[in-house]
């Protein structure tokens, strides 16, 4: 087994990056708390719009805050779970190549004071962020991905959720002509996912529009997708057309098709087993040896408080 040299973190980066990232994440937690308190504040005015542009180009060898090297672009764009195209992870890239993701509209509504439909340019004007996150698939493999996009809380504040809004419901484009996998009737299309409002407002939760500083490719959920790094990958719904604030817990596609296997929360949890895959360990793509899976995918310091007092075995 050969690991390309680009996958190995140079020592100076290994030692230098984690500290600053960790400090960033600590403040991120505080910011998220503040965001929560202001969630119901009157409509939010977006300051100085700036176009999405990576602060610095993403390069192989960069690491996340734990010192894990980012996964190669080729792996990220050629090993995908996107059942709207095919269930074959390797074939998604090929089958999605002709998918046209522009123009695109994201309808944000439901229990909000200012429902609004955003086009991509409007979304790009919302303060851009760059995040390197671990992505842990429920199938027990993982990657480290450099995302660009916007925090979901910024978008939600623009539409101003009403006080009755307790959850956020997301929907993928429903169009079997463009997403041929949706002709497979064994799934209750469209893909639906949901978050509790506090999870959605958490600063770690982003809507991604790019990877490696480049616009998202169709196989990764172009043009805009959710990224919730402490939950299994399937929660991070792709190619979103609809975001709705709702009062009741949304029923996701996976909850509908396998209620005993997939719960609403789907937090990465090495102690809660899944009938098919080991959740206590995982294979990082590019590595041979399994590594132990971390509670909340390593984001416990930032998100564990969201679930204080909850039985995570029941709320899986």
């Amino acid at each position, binding site marked *: *087994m050969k690991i390309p040299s680009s996958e190995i973190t140079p020592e100076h980066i290994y030692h230098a990056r984690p500290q600053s990232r960790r400090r960033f994440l600590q403040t991120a937690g505080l910011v998220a708390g503040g965001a929560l308190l202001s969630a119901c504040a009157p409509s939010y005015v977006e300051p100085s719009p700036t176009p999405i542009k990576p602060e610095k180009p993403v390069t192989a060898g960069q690491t996340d805050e734990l010192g894990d090297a980012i996964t190669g672009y080729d792996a990220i764009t050629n*090993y995908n779970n996107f059942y709207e195209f095919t269930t074959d992870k390797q074939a998604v890239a090929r089958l999605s190549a002709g998918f046209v993701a522009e123009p695109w509209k994201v309808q944000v509504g439901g229990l909000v004071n200012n429902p609004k439909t955003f086009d991509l340019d409007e979304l790009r004007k919302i303060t851009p962020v760059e995040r390197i996150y671990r992505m842990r698939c429920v199938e027990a493999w993982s990657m480290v991905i450099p995302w660009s996009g916007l925090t979901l809380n910024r978008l939600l504040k623009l539409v101003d959720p009403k006080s009755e809004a307790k959850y956020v419901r997301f929907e993928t484009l429903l169009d079997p002509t463009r997403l041929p996998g949706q002709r497979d009737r064994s799934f209750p299309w469209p893909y639906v996912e949901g978050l509790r409002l506090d999870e959605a407002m958490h600063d770690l939760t982003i809507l991604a529009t790019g990877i490696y500083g480049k616009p998202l490719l169709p196989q990764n959920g172009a043009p805009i997708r959710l990224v919730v790094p402490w939950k299994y990958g399937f929660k991070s719904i792709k190619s979103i057309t609809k975001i709705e604030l709702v009062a009741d817990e949304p029923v996701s596609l996976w909850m509908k098709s396998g209620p005993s296997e997939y719960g609403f929360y789907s937090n990465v949890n090495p102690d809660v087993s899944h009938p*098919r895959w080991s959740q*206590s360990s995982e*294979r990082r793509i590019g590595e041979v*040896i399994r590594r132990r899976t971390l509670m909340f995918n390593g984001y416990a310091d930032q998100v564990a408080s969201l679930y204080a007092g909850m039985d995570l075995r029941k709320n899986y």
Partner: protein
Amino acid sequence: MLAWTYAKITKRPNLMVFRIFVHLAAVLPLAHLLWDTWRGNLTVNPLQDWTFRTGDWALRLLVASLACTPLASVFGFKQAITVRRALGLYGFGYALLHFFIFVGVDYRFAFDLIWDDLATKRYILVGLAALLILIPLAITSTRGWMKRLGRRWKTLHKLTYLAVPLAVIHYIWLVKADLRDPLLYASIVTLLLILRLPVLRTQISQFRQRLSGKFLH
């Protein structure tokens, strides 16, 4: 043994061609897997490819071995019997490889993790059961054991009818969404087992003989 095979083969060249074909067909998937590994043709998750492909071929070859008897007794393709044991052993070989890739390469003998999986994942339990059942069958597959066990040999080797369905259940339980492939295996195995029912076996072969009789007259 060799002399016996040689004598048999020289008398029936077609049988030789058939048997060589079967042996090649059984070894090629492994060669292909090694080739793909060497050439870097696997996915970014190569261990999963090894696991899946050895598992797939274990099941295919075991099912093929299970097909030999009905092919001969019901459909009159007598040559099939000559490769039944080889197919079963190849299937067992791939299953063993599949097992060692899981335990030794994937989990690096981390028995705490393996134990976790064994305790919580029913598909691993039935997969292991299938493999354990196949071990005594592989050991007693030689001519010597056949003689030593006499009539009991046949009874013992009926355990295949348990092992192969368990392997299919292993496949059904591990699949996340698309059940088409495992259910295809399930229906083929069910059919192969049904064809062994004495009533059906005689009915079909009589029907077949009547049919060929018609063509003869």
